[in-house]
């Protein structure tokens, strides 16, 4: 019997789900359909969080028509999808897509232009500024949402071609503290383990992460693990009792910014009860302080922890003393403990130290190097790890995540790139001095008339700093006065400040590699063409390279096929980093094209399957030939932190300083910020999906019910939330899931008086330069009773012509 079109679609989807569920399907009638409703399935990655879910997009003609999970996936196991990913097609086909270059005229209006006009203007300005103000006057600000090939190309263009390290990216705002934490504690960036540790763990410590809303697929894995194994213990430590706590055995509340005392308190409790792994500490631990150069004795560490009694911790953090004891026991007594954290730890004035203290807990309990045990920092963006951290597209790094200040590595990269031959900078070298981190970069950005601002131009891709920078009011004027180029798919607040706006291709319109939190690089194939004149970033970078006289440096600049450009850029990148511990030499483009699961580094050759667990002999291929990577590993070492001469992980003495903004009688509340499930970042995509926009059409402020009673505020009332930097006008949501004195505001709303970063503190971590989004001192005053909110606000094409934010 001939099937109807709709029945055919349903049978196709059902058959795929049956495979995912591992049950035999009776939906084999699909072959009888007379109509092709999906011409081909194209493999790719979801781009709406850092998990790296593997998907197939269904294509008919030049349209995306379907999406399914990849049942072979190692990330979204069994190919399950979440609500954000399933709606991504509305972004690709949205009528608001930017489709033509725009140049701002003398009256402040963005006018359509040709690509040649836009690129000619960029060339003229860049050359003019290079000559007049020096090579560091022109910056690149990238994103954890660009592909690896794109980030690598821009990074090479700037550092190798211009001799300037004025390259940074939005991972500075989310992951920099984790990077510095891994580097200082273990000697090498990124986790030792993988998502596969979730199902092998006995205790999971979730800290500074609202996993249920920020990484729903990973939360599902955690919840499922708990459901299947009721003895597994889950601890959630965060200021708000979110949905994540629904699966927890223990919720540890803490006042924002104070949890360093909790971690030290747990360590004290573990040692006091003799639960620590003495052999592991002796073999693989090293007590130290400050920058890690001076080795101390174990007794120094024990003495340092004396202050952190459960009672002290309770007083400092608001976390009950009994919870500290219980958490310490769960953490130490399990056979394998996995910690996972995200922005709650990283976006802090003491984010690096917070990371160090989590690593301390793992070192003293021997929780690395075995299945189910790891200290795992989750990323918020799909390619913050692969594209920015691993390619070294930050102001202080080179490919392989090694510092520009490292002369040996700098010399190698100069040689590999042919800098002496190709650079347009007379120095003919990579600058040994790091460039500016994000907050400093935008503080230094301004017009030609402003002699105090040395940065005169910036090109920004796939990111929205005019909404995301902390204390953002400080930076908007500079962005408007300088020569700013924005590459994006939609109008944004940053595009509103731009001199030139370049329309970008979406991931499924160009393809490329994303590397997710678990060191896994996965290639997305191009599925459909970009709308109008939108172009891939790598093409844009190539055009700039050609016009700046750097065609030979960027060997793919003259290619016309984006796929070929991607391949050449990728192969150049994996060649550059082949002799680092982040090697993906075996993950050739050809291999990634074929692979349906991607490859985890280190992967030194094509026969290597990729690495699930680092630092362990028999699992980590670096042990097979350490000299190739510049390391010495004793032949009898089963586990070794090879990026350090001594092979040990640092147990840091870190106190709990009050570096964050402090409350005062005038500003008595602590405000913390974050995501909600249906929205992502500044809402430029998710606010354009009606259903997700409808779920949270505007921002709000969560206030503890006791605080609300004291302030005589009712649910829905409109209040002014104000810091010394600025204010928001927000409706109130009264909750009982926070400690008193703590309020929460989401970050996705684009409406000027609800953009929370006008309020946020711009204190940065002294080591990582990551801002302290999680702790700002504010006051709350009632404005009115409940009233209609101008929700679902989006920056429109028309608003891009306005000087002020409405």
């Amino acid at each position, binding site marked *: 019997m001939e099937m109807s079109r709709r029945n055919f679609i349903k049978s196709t989807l*059902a058959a795929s789900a049956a495979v995912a569920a591992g049950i035999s399907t009776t*939906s084999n009638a699909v072959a009888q359909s007379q109509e092709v409703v999906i011409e081909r399935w194209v493999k790719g990655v979801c781009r709406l969080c850092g998990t790296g879910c593997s998907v197939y997009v269904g294509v008919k003609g030049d349209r995306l028509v379907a999406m399914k999970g990849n049942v072979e996936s190692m990330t979204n196991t069994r190919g*399950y999808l979440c609500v954000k990913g399933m709606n991504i097609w509305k972004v690709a086909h949205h009528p608001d897509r930017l489709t033509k270059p725009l140049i701002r005229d003398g009256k402040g209006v963005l006018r359509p232009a040709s690509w040649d006009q836009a690129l000619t203007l960029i060339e003229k300005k860049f050359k003019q500024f290079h000559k007049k103000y020096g090579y560091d006057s022109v910056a690149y600000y990238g994103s954890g949402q660009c592909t690896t090939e794109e980030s690598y190309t821009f990074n090479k263009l700037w550092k190798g071609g211009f001799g300037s390290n004025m390259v940074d990216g939005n991972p500075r705002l989310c992951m920099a503290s984790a990077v510095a934490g891994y580097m200082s504690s273990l000697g090498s960036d990124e986790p030792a383990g993988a998502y596969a540790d979730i199902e092998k763990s006995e205790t999971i410590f979730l800290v500074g992460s609202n996993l249920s809303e920020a990484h729903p697929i990973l939360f599902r894995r955690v919840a499922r693990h708990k459901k299947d194994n009721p003895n597994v213990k889950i601890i959630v430590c965060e200021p708000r009792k979110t949905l994540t706590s629904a699966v927890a055995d223990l919720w540890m509340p803490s006042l924002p910014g104070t949890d360093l005392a909790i971690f030290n308190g747990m360590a004290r409790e573990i040692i006091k009860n003799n639960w620590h792994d003495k052999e592991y500490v002796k073999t693989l631990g090293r007590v130290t302080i400050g920058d890690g150069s001076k080795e101390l004795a174990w007794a120094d560490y024990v003495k340092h922890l004396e202050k952190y009694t459960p009672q002290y911790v309770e007083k400092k953090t608001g976390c009950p003393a009994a919870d500290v004891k219980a958490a310490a026991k769960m953490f130490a007594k399990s056979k394998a403990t996995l910690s996972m954290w995200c922005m709650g730890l990283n976006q802090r004035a003491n984010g690096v130290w917070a990371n160090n203290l989590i690593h301390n807990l793992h070192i003293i309990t021997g929780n690395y190097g075995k299945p189910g045990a790891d200290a795992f920092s989750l990323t918020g963006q799909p390619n913050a790890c692969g594209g920015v951290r691993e390619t070294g597209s930050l102001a202080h790094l080179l490919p392989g995540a090694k510092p520009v200040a490292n002369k040996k590595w700098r010399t190698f990269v100069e040689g590999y790139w042919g800098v002496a031959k190709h650079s347009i900078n007379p120095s003919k070298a990579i600058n040994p001095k790091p460039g500016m981190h994000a907050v400093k970069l935008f503080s230094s950005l301004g017009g030609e008339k402003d002699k105090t601002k040395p940065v005169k131009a910036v090109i920004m891709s796939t990111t929205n700093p005019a909404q995301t920078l902390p204390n953002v009011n400080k930076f908007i004027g500079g962005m408007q006065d300088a020569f700013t180029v924005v590459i994006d798919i939609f109008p944004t607040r940053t595009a509103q400040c731009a001199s030139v706006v370049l329309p970008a291709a979406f991931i499924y319109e160009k393809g490329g590699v994303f590397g997710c939190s678990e060191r896994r690089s996965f290639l997305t194939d191009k599925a459909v063409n970009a709308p109008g004149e939108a172009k891939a970033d790598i093409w844009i970078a190539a055009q700039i390279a050609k016009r700046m006289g750097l065609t030979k440096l960027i060997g793919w600049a003259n290619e016309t096929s984006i796929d070929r450009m991607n391949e050449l850029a990728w192969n150049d990148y994996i060649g550059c980093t082949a002799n680092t511990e982040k090697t993906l030499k075996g993950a050739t483009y050809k291999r990634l094209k074929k692979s349906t699961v991607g490859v985890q580094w280190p992967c030194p050759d094509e026969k290597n399957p990729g690495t699930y667990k680092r630092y362990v002999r028999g699992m980590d291929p670096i042990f097979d030939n350490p000299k190739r990577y510049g390391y010495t590993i004793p032949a009898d070492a089963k586990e070794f932190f090879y990026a350090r001469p001594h092979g040990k992980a640092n147990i840091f003495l870190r106190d709990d300083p009050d570096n964050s903004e402090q409350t005062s009688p005038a500003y008595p509340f602590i405000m913390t910020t974050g995501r909600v499930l249906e929205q992502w970042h500044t809402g430029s995509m998710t606010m354009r999906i009606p259903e997700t926009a409808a779920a949270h059409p505007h921002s709000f402020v969560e206030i503890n019910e006791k605080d609300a009673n004291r302030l005589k505020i009712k649910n829905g009332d409109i209040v002014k939330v104000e810091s010394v930097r600025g204010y928001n006008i927000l409706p109130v949501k009264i909750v009982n899931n926070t400690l008193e004195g703590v309020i929460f505001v989401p970050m996705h709303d684009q409406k000027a008086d609800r953009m929370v970063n006008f309020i946020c503190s711009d204190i940065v971590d002294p080591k990582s330069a990551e801002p302290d989004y999680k702790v700002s001192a504010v006051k709350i005053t009632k404005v009115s009773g409940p009233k209609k909110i101008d929700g679902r606000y989006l920056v429109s094409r028309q608003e891009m012509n306005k000087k002020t934010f409405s």
Partner: protein
Amino acid sequence: MIFTSAVLEFHKDSYKELLSFIESQSQVEVYDKDIDAGKLVLVISTEDDAELEVIQKTFHANKLVIDFTYHAIHFGESVDKLIDGEIKIDFEDINNKKKNKLQ
């Protein structure tokens, strides 16, 4: 129309009770099943994602359900209508739809 396949895991002793619940959902069809393993493959046909979300919440709220997870979605008809101008992605059509309450 949007068509979505999902995998539902249930307490296998309650299959009959669950089945009658599913049959009460007009947009939901059972395509495959493994009762011993406590798994069903469902296909859900909805006008839009908002309707789909309501169904998802209904399943998540059902005590007989252990897990309910999406696997694939076909939105081709909506894309065609969108590109052909028959529907708009704007906010006019969601004004009256449910949003998350403030409490």
